[in-house]
Every structure is written in structure tokens, then in C-alpha cells.
């Protein structure tokens, strides 16, 4: 909203070459295609140069040599039209496949650490990383790697042909080629290391400000603060424009410099033809050298310009790798699932961060298979922490948690989570249909099951009255439903799970008193031998429970059941 609002960018822990290497590793499955793309590009270069070399040698008449040579240059270009078409098509396709892989890889990385929440990583920033950083990486292959590979192949051929026209002129053209293809590119990339990240950062900031505006439209109108949010967007936009303008000026100057260098090469060959400065070259060889020099030098002027993009590219790679690496890999156990569904906490001590006091101290409790229990206590007492521990969202500092006698740290996350369904306080409703929200991609559930779950969650009548029923689109975070209705859809999703253990964290939030009672009575009948752990501030009296634990000062005190 103001100047001090700019997010701090944490200094990157990974250095640039490492980040690029990681990205290249993710692209491994596409290596075949990416390399084929380079080979086609090389073929196109070879075709052009061979034709040129042939053309020069076979021409007889000097003057027609110029006209026909020029024609041949273009015909060689024409034969390249087909190759070039396939090259562009193929390299772009390979690149986009690699980018799609990268997006999915990034998502998987994110999912690994997501259970503990996203914290300061704002979703706007994440979106920016996924969309524009990934997009930026296409420059790495299309504008840097492929042309660079072509330039490396072109250099000896150009040098060879131009040396035939004279040592001096040959070396001059070769030197200019090296300057264009490698020296300028390298200098550009050095230069861009400093300013390249600016554009990406500015764009990410703009995106966060825009998301704040879009998500905060209600607040903005209610507080008459549209200007505050709009100004934040405008301020970020100006920062982005500044960065873009600077980049444009550098690009234009680099392009100009590269253009002049290429023309200097052409002039050198012309001088050799005329016998100025260099020894006079025979016309036929000289004209061939002229055309080869024009083609080759023009083909690498773009590379100097692309050098200025490397800063952006490496920064994008760093940001992507940085966030992916910040998520710790959790060791996965391999023990088979035990048959019993008993949950036992043994002397568990747990705190969310090192410095703070633990929320749970030496806590032990047992929920036997098929039992119902309630965990009550004030907020901050650690009720939700217990749920997080059982689902391996967090690990206890001391003690252990057993499922049917097996320490859950020896089970894989997936196996464990297939046994426990959790309605958390922050269960998310997706911008999808009611059906899509209930299924979350599963395909093994019938409509009858869906209606049954909706019935139990006391929301079926509401859904039945909707004209599109299960296929009603519920909007962002369920915005088209009322708060209580949305909560019940989330509840139905949990009830739909086949997991033998249900953990319901404040399931009645947002329900009016009557609905809450009715729902809790339904819950008494969920049965089928499932265990239920109900987490609540208070009990209504209608719950049928085997245990009631009061959580106080990190300890569970059993109350009458």
C-alpha cells in the first residue's frame, strides 16, 4: 500500500549455475526432444552453409556470380525455409513440454510441504513464480542454447571460407563473429545479472498488489479505500515500467552495437574485394566470402541481445528452485499398515517452534478402534496440534504416536492419510461444482453415496433445491453458498471418505443451534466401526461419547464419559 510495503526478497540460498542445473535435471524426460531440436537447428545451419560454399566455387562469371550468388544465398535460405519451419515448430514444442513438466514438478514440491501451511509464501507470489518465471525459462533453450549450439558449428565453417579470401580478412571476420556470438553475449549476461531480476520482482509485486485489490474489493468498498489499493497497484506498475524501460534501452543499444559489428565484418570483406587495407581477393572467392559473412554475422546478432536475458532466466530458475528447496523432504516409512485402527499417543511433547513453550507436554491418550471421543479446551490449548500430529503434518519433539501399535513415522504419509479423514478449521472449498468439491478427483463414488453424505451433513435439502443440484458451481471458497452451507459441504466431503478414523475439528462452526444439534445426532450414527475424534470448544450434550478429554496446560484430563 505504501513504499514500505514492498516485500522483502530473501537472499537466494542457491547460486545461479546450481539452479540452472536443477532445472535442466527436471527436464530430463524431455532431453530426447530437446536434443533433437538442437540437431534440426544444426542441420538447418549446415544446409545453408554447404549450399553457400558450393555456390561460390562453381560460379564462373564474376558479375553473374554476384547476382546468382545472391540468388543462391536466398535459395539456400529457401531450402532452409522448410528446415527452419520444422526447427521452430519442433524446438518450441519440446520447450513447452519441458515447461509443463516443470510446472507439475513445482506443484508436487509444493504439495510435499503444504500440509503445514503456506505461511509467508503468498499465493500471489507463487502464482507469479509458476506462470511467469516458468515462461521466462523458455528463453534459456530457444534463445540461448539452440542459437549458441548453431553458432559453435558455424564458426569453423565461416572461418574456413573467409580464410580462403585472405588471411587478414578471414581472421577479421572470424574475430567479429566471436565477438558477436560469444563476447557480447557473455558481457550482456554479466550485465544482466545485476538488473535482470528487477523485472521479475516488479512483476511479482504487481501481481500481489493486484490480488490484494481483487480479493479485497469488499473491504475496499466498505472502507472507501479503493484509492489505497489502486495506488498500490499503480506504484508497483511504475516500478515494473521503470525496469522494463531500462531493459528496453539496454536491448536497443546492444542490438545497435551488434548490428554495427556485423556491418564492420561486411565492410572488411568489401575492402578485401577492392584491395583496400587487405590484399585483393579474387572476385569469385571474395563474393562467396561476402555472402557467407553476411549470413553468418546476421544470424548471431540476435544472440548478443539474448545475452541480456540470461539474468532474468537465471533469476527465474533460482526463484523456482529456491522455493522448491525450502520445502523439506519428509522421510517416508515403509512399514505395512497394521490391521488395528487404535490410535495411541505416548508421552508426546510438542511445540510449533523451538523458542516457544510446547503446547503439549508429556501427553498420553488412547482412542481404541470404533470409539468416539471429544477433545475440548480453550483455543491455543493444542487441540488442533493433536490432529496435526496424528496426520504427520508435524512431528512430536518427544514421545511417539502409534497406529495399531506401529509408530506412524514408520508409515508412508499416503498410507497413514488413507486411514484418517480430517475436517480441519481451514478446510478449503474449491472453485468448482459441489460434486467436484466432494469427489476431489476420485472416480469411485456413486451419486447415491454423495447424497448420503450430504444428508448426514444436513445439507442435502439445500442442494436438492438448487436447479443444477450437484453440478452447481459454488464459486471461490464457496462464495455462492452461505458460510454454514459451505462448512457442511466440507463436512460431507470428510464423511464421504472411507477412512476408518474421522477427526472433526469444530465441525459445527457457522451452524445455527438447531442444525448443530441435528448434525451431532447424525454423527452418533456414523458408526460402521469408525473411530471419531471430535474437537470442540464445548459440548452440546447430545453427543454420544466414550471419552471426553479436557486439554489443559498441555495435558489431557479425562472427564466422565
Amino acid at each position: 500500500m505504501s513504499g514500505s510495503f514492498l516485500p522483502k526478497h530473501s537472499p537466494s540460498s542457491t547460486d545461479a549455475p546450481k539452479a540452472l542445473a536443477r532445472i535442466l535435471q527436471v527436464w530430463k524426460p524431455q532431453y530426447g526432444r530437446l536434443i533433437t531440436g538442437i540437431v534440426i537447428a544444426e542441420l538447418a545451419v549446415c544446409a545453408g552453409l554447404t549450399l553457400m560454399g558450393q555456390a561460390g566455387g562453381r560460379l564462373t562469371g564474376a558479375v553473374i556470380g554476384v547476382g546468382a550468388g545472391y540468388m543462391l544465398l536466398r535459395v539456400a535460405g529457401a531450402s532452409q525455409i522448410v528446415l527452419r519451419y520444422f526447427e521452430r515448430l519442433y524446438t518450441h514444442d519440446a520447450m513447452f513440454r519441458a515447461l509443463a513438466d516443470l510446472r507439475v514438478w513445482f506443484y508436487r514440491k509444493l504439495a510435499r510441504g503444504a500440509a503445514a501451511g503456506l505461511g509467508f509464501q503468498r499465493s500471489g507470489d507463487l502464482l507469479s513464480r509458476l506462470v511467469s518465471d516458468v515462461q521466462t525459462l523458455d528463453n534459456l533453450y530457444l534463445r540461448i542454447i539452440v542459437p549458441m549450439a548453431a553458432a559453435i558449428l558455424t564458426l569453423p565453417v565461416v572461418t574456413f571460407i573467409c580464410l580462403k579470401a585472405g588471411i587478414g580478412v578471414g581472421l577479421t571476420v572470424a574475430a567479429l563473429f566471436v565477438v558477436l556470438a560469444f563476447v557480447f553475449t557473455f558481457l550482456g549476461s554479466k550485465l544482466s545479472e545485476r538488473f535482470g531480476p528487477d523485472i521479475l520482482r516488479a512483476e511479482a509485486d504487481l501481481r500481489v498488489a493486484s490480488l490484494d485489490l481483487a480479493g479485497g474489493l469488499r473491504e475496499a468498498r466498505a472502507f472507501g479505500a479503493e484509492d489505497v489499493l489502486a495506488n498500490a497497484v499503480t506504484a508497483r506498475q511504475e516500478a515494473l515500467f521503470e525496469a522494463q524501460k531500462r531493459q528496453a534501452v539496454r536491448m536497443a543499444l546492444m542490438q545497435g552495437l551488434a548490428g554495427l559489428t556485423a556491418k564492420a565484418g561486411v565492410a572488411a570483406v568489401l575492402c578485401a574485394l577492392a584491395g583496400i587495407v587487405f590484399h585483393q581477393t579474387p572476385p569469385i572467392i571474395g563474393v562467396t566470402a561476402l555472402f557467407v559473412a553476411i549470413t553468418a554475422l546476421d544470424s548471431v546478432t540476435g544472440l548478443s541481445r539474448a545475452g541480456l536475458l540470461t539474468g532474468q532466466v537465471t533469476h527465474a530458475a533460482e526463484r523456482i528452485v529456491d522455493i522448491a528447496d525450502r520445502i523439506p523432504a519428509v522421510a517416508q516409512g515403509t512399514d505395512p499398515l497394521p490391521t488395528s485402527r487404535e490410535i495411541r499417543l505416548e508421552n508426546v511433547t510438542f511445540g510449533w517452534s523451538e523458542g516457544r513453550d510446547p503446547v503439549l507436554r508429556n501427553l498420553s491418550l488412547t482412542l481404541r478402534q470404533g470409539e468416539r471421543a471429544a477433545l475440548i479446551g480453550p483455543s491455543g490449548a493444542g487441540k488442533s496440534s493433536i490432529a496435526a500430529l496424528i496426520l504427520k503434518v508435524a512431528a512430536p519433539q518427544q514421545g511417539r504416536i502409534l497406529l495399531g501399535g506401529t509408530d506412524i513415522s514408520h508409515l508412508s504419509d499416503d498410507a497413514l492419510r488413507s486411514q484418517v479423514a480430517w475436517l480441519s478449521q481451514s478446510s478449503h472449498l474449491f472453485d468448482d461444482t459441489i460434486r467436484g468439491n466432494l469427489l476431489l478427483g476420485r472416480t469411485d463414488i456413486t451419486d447415491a453415496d454423495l447424497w448420503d453424505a450430504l444428508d448426514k451433513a444436513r445439507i442435502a435439502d439445500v442442494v436438492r433445491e438448487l436447479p443444477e443440484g450437484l453440478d452447481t458451481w459454488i464459486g471461490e471458497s464457496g462464495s455462492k453458498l452461505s458460510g454454514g452451507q459451505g462448512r457442511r459441504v466440507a463436512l460431507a466431503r470428510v464423511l464421504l471418505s472411507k477412512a476408518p478414523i474421522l477427526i472433526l475439528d469444530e465441525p459445527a462452526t457457522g451452524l445455527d443451534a438447531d442444525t448443530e444439534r441435528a448434525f451431532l445426532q447424525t454423527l452418533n450414527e456414523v458408526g460402521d466401526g469408525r473411530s471419531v475424534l471430535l474437537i470442540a470448544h464445548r459440548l452440546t450434550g447430545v453427543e454420544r461419547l466414550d471419552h471426553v478429554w479436557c486439554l489443559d496446560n498441555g495435558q489431557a484430563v479425562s472427564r466422565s464419559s
Partner: protein
Amino acid sequence: MKADKTIAKAWVKAQGRASRSRTSVITVVGLFSTFLGILQGWALARTLAAILLHDPDHVAPAICVFLLACALRTGLGVLQEIFASSASVAARRRLRHEILERILAEGPALLRRRHSSAIAATIVDRVEALEGYFARWLPASSLWLVSQWIVVAFVFWQNRQAGIILAICCASLPFFQAVFGIATAVASRRQFLAMTRLQTRFLDRVKGIATIVLSGGTEREAQALATSADDLRKRTMKVLRIAFIASATTDVAMVIALVLIVVTQSHDLLSATSESMTAKALFAVLMVPEAFASFRALSAAYQDRAHATASAEAMHDLAPMPAHEKNPSAHTLPTRTAKGVALSAEHVSYTWDPTRGPAIQNINFRLSAGETLILEGESGAGKSTLIEMLLGFINPESGRVLLGEADMNTLTPHQVSSCISWIGQKPVIFAGTIRENILFARPDASEEQILAAVKSAAVDGFLSTLPDGLDTRIGEGGFGLSGGQAQRIAIARAYLKNAPLLLLDEPTAHLDPATEAEILSSLHALSEGRTVILCSHSAQARQFHGRHLLLKQGQVAAFTGEAA
């Protein structure tokens, strides 16, 4: 759809007109560049002719002219690029301003129709996607025809036969342009849809990623993401394929022109009659690529044109121009008494979705200044709709809402919001510091006023636990703050704003009883001297006394009680 396309076309044209002056500067630079290109070609032809016909006297001056033309042309190229970039920046600045105004005019009702990330994508990506439209397409489209035919004219002047051949080949280009241009526009629209879908889906999935992971859906979601990313690739390739074919056909036309010119000029080239004849023939040959260069620039920018159409449609779809402007001077603000402001609803109705029937119907009540109204009803009974109407987010379809004596519909959004403080279930905490989040309610507040609000809302109670006090950064969604703490920030905003009408929409829905009691007593203190509308299921909210309005299926079931 048809009407939308017409609007989009008109919009795109209007954009072109708005940046006409900047575009014409770039066009003029481009014209000079074309003339220099002709001079460059002419000098090169002279140089070669002189060398081949062994006329060394003419070589050196011709090379000098060639180099001079090259240097000047490079300089103009640099200028052209810098001008194009600043033209594009100016156009995008204007456009983003326009879009922001439209989104803000549409207001919160927009969030019912559109995902917030789709709105943000319009603000950021739709505008940025037009970078090339302003920087490349507009100048190229006004330049190419003139530039091309200037070259053709020069060739014709020097060499009749070659000029005619070149003219015929060039004339075939608009045909290609039409064929491939239309196809690109269609494919590009689909590509943009795929792109937006990918972004919206991703943001939503990221927000709910914990839910996905814990329900074991990571793999399924990753697959779904892979599918939409692949969809994006296919759409992009469709656009690119057309662009590549278009550029390949231009190359083919150019090669045909070259071959024909060399073959027909071979007599002059072979017999080497005179230096000037040879130079003219060479000039014709060298000018062929120059004649096609401007068209290449155009077809390279054709995608940018397609992006413009797609963006126009998306913007129109998101927020159509407001139909009527309210006149703010016609009505004065309602008078505020020491107790607050009077509020009444007269037979108001509203329907979100005609297929689902009215959300509220014929609601009628009247509150005097300082009274409290407790809004009751089952979830889905229309409480939130009524609150949004009282906030002025939506206008009643029939009936009217009176704020003081003024019909709310005749007040500007700013006038309405200046009278109301609103605290909802989950306040949106913006990315930034706590101070900035509170100041949001009144950016010009003094330090004393902020501190007073912080104290009244008991924000100071938890400030000491935060590393930087008021300047502690809190992320999107209020990371690091509990629900009660976030709600305290909302209360501090309300204190700072000091509006006579207070709307409380389930302010304690997510809080435990102890925190709830604290928040409610803070709210109770805040309600002193204000008119209050409270909507809450909580039993504890009974400490608020006042009238009760019970809603049932969108209608008033009961309106009881007297002011306390």
C-alpha cells in the same frame, strides 16, 4: 457473442487511436530507416559493380556511403526501439488505469461472478500481454504498406522489369495475411482461455493445497495440472504453427521474386555492358529482402494483434462500462447525530440468480439513530445478501434503502462507505505491516489516532508478542495472526474510521468462547454511539440488546423488540 466481437473490435480501434501520436513518431522514424535501407542497398550495388568491373576509383566513396548509411540506420533502429518501448508503457499505463476504474466501479458484486485470481490476471497479464501490440503491431501496421511500396517504386525507377516483378509478388502478400491472420486470431483467443484457466486453477489449488494433500489427492491434482499445462502447450503451438507458416510463405514469395529478377536480369549481369546497368541490376536484387522486411515485421507482430482482441473481450466480459453515472453533488450526506444514523429498508428485494429465486424479498424495517438490530435466521435465509445491500455492494431490485433521509442508491459509493464500518467473518488482511492494515481504514490518520484505535481495539494486547510491534509484517490471509487477533485489527480499523453505522456479520464465527467473549465486549464498546446491525448465531451475542429481525427464506418472519 457476435455483439461482443463488435465491441472488442471497436475497443481495439479506440486503443489504436489513443496512442496514435506516439505511433506516428515511430512510423516516421521507420520511414527514414526505409530510405536509409534503400541508400544502403544502392551503395552496396555501386561498390560491387565498381569492383567487378575493375573501376577502383568508385569503390572507396561507395563503401563510405554504405558504411555511413549502415551507421545511421543502426542509430535509427535504436531510437525506434526505445520509442516503441515508451509508447507501449504509456499505452499500458492508460489501459490499466481504465481497467482499475472499471473494476472498482463494479465493486464487490464482481467477486460473486469472478474468481479473484481471474480479476488479478486481467489487471496484470491482460494488460502486459498488450506490450507487443503497442510496441510492434501498431507501428508495423501503419508502416508496412508505405515502406514496401516505396522500395518497389525505387526499384521500378531504377529497373522497370524488376520493379514489375517485385510489385506482383508484393501484391500477393495481403492475401496471405488475410488467410493466416484470421486463423491466428481464433487460435489465440483459445490459448488465452487456456492460460487463464491454468492460472485460476493453480491459485485455487494452492490456497487449498493442505486439503488436497491430506485427502490424498496430490497425485490426482498434479495430473489435472499436467493436463491443463499440456492443453496450454497445444493451444500455444496452434498459434505458433500458423505464425511459422505465415513467415515461411513470406519467405517463399521472396525467393520467387529473387529467382525471377535474377533470371530476367541475367542479360545485364552477364554481358556487363556498363557499370550503371550492372549497378541497377544488382540494386534490384539487393532490394528484394528490403521490400519484404516490413511485411515480416508485421507478420511477426500478428500474434500481438490477436492478443489485443482476446484482451478486449476478456475486459468487456469482466467489467462492462458502468451504465449510468451517479451525480454526487445532488445529494448531501445523511446527518449524523450523537447516537449514530437512522437506517431503514423499504420493501427491498434482490435476486442473485433467477433460477434460484429471490435471495431476499420485500424486506421492511426502520431503525432510529443509535438502535441495534439483531439479524437472525438459518444459514441461507438471506442475511448476507441483506448485509451486502446495506453496505451498498448491491442495489435493491425494488424498494429502497434509506441512510438517514437519503436514498442509498443516489449516494456515491464513497458517501455510503464513509457512513459505515463493517466487520465480517474473516477480515481480509493485506500483505504488509499491521500499521498499514489498520491505516487502510483512513490513510491520513495521525499517529495519536492510530494508537488510540489500537488501544480501544485491544490490539496492543498482542503487539508485545510480535517481533516488530505495529510494523510486524503479516502475509496474505494474515499469517502469524490468530482469528481473534485478525478480528481485533478489523475492530481497530472500525475505531479509526469512526463511522455512525456499524455492520457486524458473524464477527465471532471462528473464535473459541473465551476469545469470542473478549471480542464481543470490544464490539459492544465500539457500538456505543452508533447504529448497529448484528448478525450472529452465537449465544454470547445476547449481550447486545435491541430489535430482532428474523429472516426465513428471504422474507421477514418477525420484527420484534424495542430499543434498549
